[in-house]
């Protein structure tokens, strides 16, 4: 059953990612003010989706581990954090490529950028700390650290809305929004990244079991 699901998610990933890349470069309209560079937006949002899912899964499995002391839960929490850290880094890098031409700088200490950078540092430290504490025989310390680290994730989302910054509030803000063709492209891309997340977690899980 599980093997079938992972095979199906791999097939869906290949199909959706192909359509998504085609749509990003051929179907999605060129943005009026920012031009072609705005196409990074789709990959940027896809990476945001993956790290959000991964860190939520990390929180859920860390709490499960704290409750039942099952090492398998600790392991799943760890691999989710690994995928999450990779995609936080990808979010930051794609954001920088976008910011350089549009804002005029690779980086600035805006609230959302600062909190995202802290998110990266927190979970990167968690990866190291998880290995250390497991080796020392106290893996629950890492699980507690994971639960505390999660506090930063909602802050990343809220910061741009309640504090003054340079990151745009495109969704749910005043005067924001994207055109219908852009929305279609975004939805397909998010679908592709959802399956990318599932496939990566499955593959990473197999590496451990060898």
């Amino acid at each position, binding site marked *: 059953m599980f093997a079938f699901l992972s095979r199906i998610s791999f097939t869906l990933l290949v199909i959706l990612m192909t359509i998504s890349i085609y749509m990003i470069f051929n179907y999605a309209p*060129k943005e009026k003010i920012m031009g072609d560079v705005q196409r990074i937006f789709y990959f940027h949002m896809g990476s945001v989706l993956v790290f959000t899912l991964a860190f939520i899964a990390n929180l859920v499995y860390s709490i499960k581990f704290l409750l039942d002391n099952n090492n398998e839960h600790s392991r799943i929490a760890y691999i989710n954090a690994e995928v999450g850290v990779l995609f936080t880094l990808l979010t930051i890098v794609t954001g920088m490529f976008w910011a350089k*031409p549009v804002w005029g700088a690779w980086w600035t200490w805006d609230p959302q950028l600062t909190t995202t950078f802290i998110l990266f540092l927190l979970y990167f430290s968690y990866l190291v700390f998880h290995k250390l504490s497991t080796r020392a025989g106290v893996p629950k310390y890492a699980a507690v650290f994971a639960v505390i680290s999660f506090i930063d994730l909602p802050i990343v989302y809220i910061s741009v809305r309640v504090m003054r910054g340079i990151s*745009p509030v495109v969704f749910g803000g005043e005067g924001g929004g994207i*055109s219908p063709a852009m929305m279609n492209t975004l939805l397909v891309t998010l679908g592709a990244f959802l399956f990318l997340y599932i496939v990566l977690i499955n593959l990473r899980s197999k590496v451990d079991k060898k």
Partner: protein
Amino acid sequence: MNPKAKIKIVAVALILFFSFLTFKAVKSSLVYYLTVSEVQERESFSKLKRLRVSGVVERGSIKRNEDGSISFIIRDKESTIYVQYKGVIPDVFRDEVQAVVEGTIEDKVFLANKLFAKCPTKYEDDKLGNNRLSFVQ
């Protein structure tokens, strides 16, 4: 030292480090920029005090000077500031765009050495252009 004690020390060090980082981040980016009127309301600023101010670029105010610098006016609902800037100009910098400038104030003139343009929050189709990437055509 036993491994458990070592882990405790690492845990405490990590928590202290992140508390410090969060404190610094909140302190410095809680007010990422001032508005134009907030700057004008205050009587005076030290010439050494670095500020970050954001406002809308006044239509038709962007002027290119001979030495390669540019000057323009940013405004909000109540006041305006005259800005001088020399450096790289962002692609989307133009009239009526929200800009963020970093620098100092001297004799009512804002001397900026950093200029950011806030990107639009509404992404619109370029009706004139083709949907394809420009270099694909």
